[in-house]
């Protein structure tokens, strides 16, 4: 277990010219560097997507606003959705997977390092392709700009007649390319977890984070590929004159909806499952207790993975399916709440009776627990088909899924940033700035997304460009927009914290949180080879065993 880094005498480490450094980063196949590249890339897109969200919110601040034109507004919500899902949350999660999975299971690297680099660059160029549409989207026809088809890109909006120029093609190709990148990374994660565990790391001793990445990887294989297939069909329609989604020739627009949501709903779980992993690592450490109900947590994760593959058509209750389909999808949707509820109980069970340290990572996790619960409850409300007929396509839905993605996934991600930043950089993030970030973001979040439920209930449809003054939505929308700006300030505090702590933060040492998983046994940042000697583990908390040889976990498991 003595797996500290080999120390290299100072004179051997020389400053390299920046060209060499750049070359090293571009050609790297090291899982830690690729992880950092993924994360930084996602942060850049987070800022871009955030600016788009602010433009949307300025436009909706009061009735009859004309801050942007309707066309630009359509582009903004399309790009905001696509960016946030595919080029922020997916890559940041893959980044953490890359960085953490080999360290947590005591491996030297991912199973296929070159495939890993290839997948990253595919995703990266996918993102560039999407944003190049601002420049190249008008194409030869001189029509269009960035895609304006919404992130679901329902047919027939994507048909040649309604989407001239190349904007939709950039959207399609960007998602196709980054989708292949995701599949490559998913294969890599699964192979790494199944084949490269260190001696003694049985499946039932893996950190829950690793289990959840295993579930996520498997879901990516099954859920992202339908999107790729549908994108290929869309390209055939647009370029070869096919009729898949062309209702004029007997094709079906509903088929696109099915294909999109067969991808789209599992995708939400692909995103949230690693977030569950962050919680399962952070909450025990800051409650000073091992996770409550480890086997049940694993079982619940796998159950969520399976059930979430059969809920997609709850996005389509208003399309007019028959009552059997409606009942089936309503029931499965409610059923997925059961394993999710088990998880929430287990996290609370972990905190119960623990000595809770209210450090910033823990604050974000507690925020997650409350908000994800509310997000789940509004989800159950909409799972009932008749209620959904009323609420579908309103701002209630927008509030609901932002509650999941911002209030849930993003809060867990911020927790993960504060928790693992010391490992990645060797320096602590500032606690003071972190608390400012947390409270500002919490206040902004609740101002925006709590209030957003109300115009939804009052009937405000999503994706409208502006609205009439006599609807009574003005004040509510103003509050929502103010909240959005408070969140933006919080994000700036966060970015400033990331940058300034990198240079001035307190030195972290190997194990600043007194944690229990393997990544904390090596130096911060870890050396290229991760562990000088291959670690051997005997329990779920290898570092606890190392620190407390008189009372090791392995006695009880």
């Amino acid at each position, binding site marked *: 277990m003595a797996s500290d880094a080999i120390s290299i005498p100072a004179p051997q480490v020389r400053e390299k010219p920046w060209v060499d450094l750049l070359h090293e980063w571009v050609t790297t196949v090291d899982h830690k560097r690729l992880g950092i590249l993924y994360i930084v890339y996602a942060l850049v897109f987070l800022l871009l997507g955030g600016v788009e969200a602010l433009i949307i919110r300025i436009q909706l601040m009061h009735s009859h606003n004309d801050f942007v034109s309707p066309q630009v507004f359509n582009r903004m919500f399309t790009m905001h959705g696509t960016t946030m899902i595919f080029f922020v949350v997916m890559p940041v999660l893959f980044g953490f997977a890359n960085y953490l999975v080999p360290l947590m299971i005591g491996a030297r690297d991912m199973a296929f390092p070159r495939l890993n680099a290839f997948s990253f660059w595919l995703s990266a160029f996918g993102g560039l392709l999407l944003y190049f549409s601002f420049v190249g989207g008008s194409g030869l026809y001189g029509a269009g700009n960035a895609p304006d088809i919404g992130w679901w890109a329902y047919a027939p909006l994507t048909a040649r007649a309604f989407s001239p120029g190349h904007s939709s093609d950039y959207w399609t190709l960007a998602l196709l390319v980054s989708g292949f990148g995701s599949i490559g990374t998913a294969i890599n994660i*699964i192979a790494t977890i199944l084949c490269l565990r260190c001696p003694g790391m049985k499946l039932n001793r893996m950190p829950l984070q690793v289990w959840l990445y295993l579930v996520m990887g498997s879901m990516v294989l099954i859920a992202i590929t339908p999107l790729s297939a549908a994108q290929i*069909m869309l390209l055939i329609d647009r370029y070869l004159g096919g009729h898949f989604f062309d209702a004029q020739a007997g094709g079906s627009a509903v088929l696109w909806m099915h294909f999109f949501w067969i991808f789209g709903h599992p995708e939400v779980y692909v995103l949230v499952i690693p977030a569950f992993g962050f919680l399962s690592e952070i909450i025990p450490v800051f409650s000073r207790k091992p996770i409550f109900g480890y086997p049940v947590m694993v079982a619940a994760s796998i159950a969520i993975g399976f059930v979430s593959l059969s809920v997609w058509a709850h996005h389509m209750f208003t399309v007019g399916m028959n009552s059997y389909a409606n009942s089936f999808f309503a029931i499965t949707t409610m059923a997925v709440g059961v394993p999710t509820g088990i998880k929430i109980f287990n996290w609370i069970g972990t905190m119960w009776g623990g000595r809770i340290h209210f450090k910033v990572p823990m604050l974000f996790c507690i925020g997650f627990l409350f908000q994800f619960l509310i997000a789940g409850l509004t989800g159950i409300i909409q799972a009932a088909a008749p209620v959904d007929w009323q609420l579908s396509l309103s701002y209630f839905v927008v509030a609901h899924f932002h509650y999941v993605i911002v209030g849930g996934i993003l809060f867990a991600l911020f927790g993960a940033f504060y928790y693992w930043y010391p490992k990645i950089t060797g320096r602590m993030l500032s606690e003071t700035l972190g608390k400012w970030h947390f409270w500002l973001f919490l206040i902004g979040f609740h101002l925006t997304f709590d209030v957003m439920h109300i115009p939804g209930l009052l009937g405000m449809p999503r994706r409208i460009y502006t609205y009439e003054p006599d609807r009574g939505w003005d004040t509510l929308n103003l509050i929502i927009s103010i909240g959005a700006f408070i969140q933006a300030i919080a994000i700036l505090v966060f970015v400033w914290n990331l940058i300034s702590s990198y240079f001035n933060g307190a030195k972290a040492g190997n194990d600043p949180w007194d944690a229990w998983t393997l990544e904390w046994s090596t130096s911060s940042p870890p050396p290229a080879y991760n562990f000088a000697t291959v670690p051997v583990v005997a329990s779920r908390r290898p570092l606890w065993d190392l620190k407390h040889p008189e009372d090791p976990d392995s006695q009880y498991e």
Partner: protein
Amino acid sequence: MACLIIAESSIFTIFVVAYLFYIGKSLTGPTPSEVLEVPIFSTICLLSSSITVHFAGRFLERNNRSMFLVLWSLTIVLGGLFLFGTGREWHRLIYDHGLTISTNLFGTTYYSLVGLHAFHVTAGLIMLSVVLIFGLAGRIDAEQSRRIDVLSLYWHFVDAVWIVVFTVVYIVGR
């Protein structure tokens, strides 16, 4: 490779579902029963290539390199014959029956499903040929047999997909 096969199966599933969904929904002709003939010969070729690739792997395990090369080349020839058969069929459909990918829904779904499969056969043939070149150069022996097994797993998968495509297109779809 197993993971890749899961992912690929998922892609094929979507295309097969689209094909099944659109059977009989074309607004204009030609319809499958008018133009499709069951490609028995190329199907036999492709399915038997699965047997040859399997035994090629077994011979390699026992370090019998010449038999490995013979059976491996036979696999490539059989795969090539299958592709040739598909090409002939497409030629006939396009020039004799005027069915292209944009003619009707049958054309769209038929060419994309069969084409997606043919694309995988082509990719497989390229990989098999690369191995053959290395084999002729004397670089392949029993040490590589696990890697060769991974490739033959892919080839078996391509065959298995053809059984599904064959059933859907030529039996159910007609």
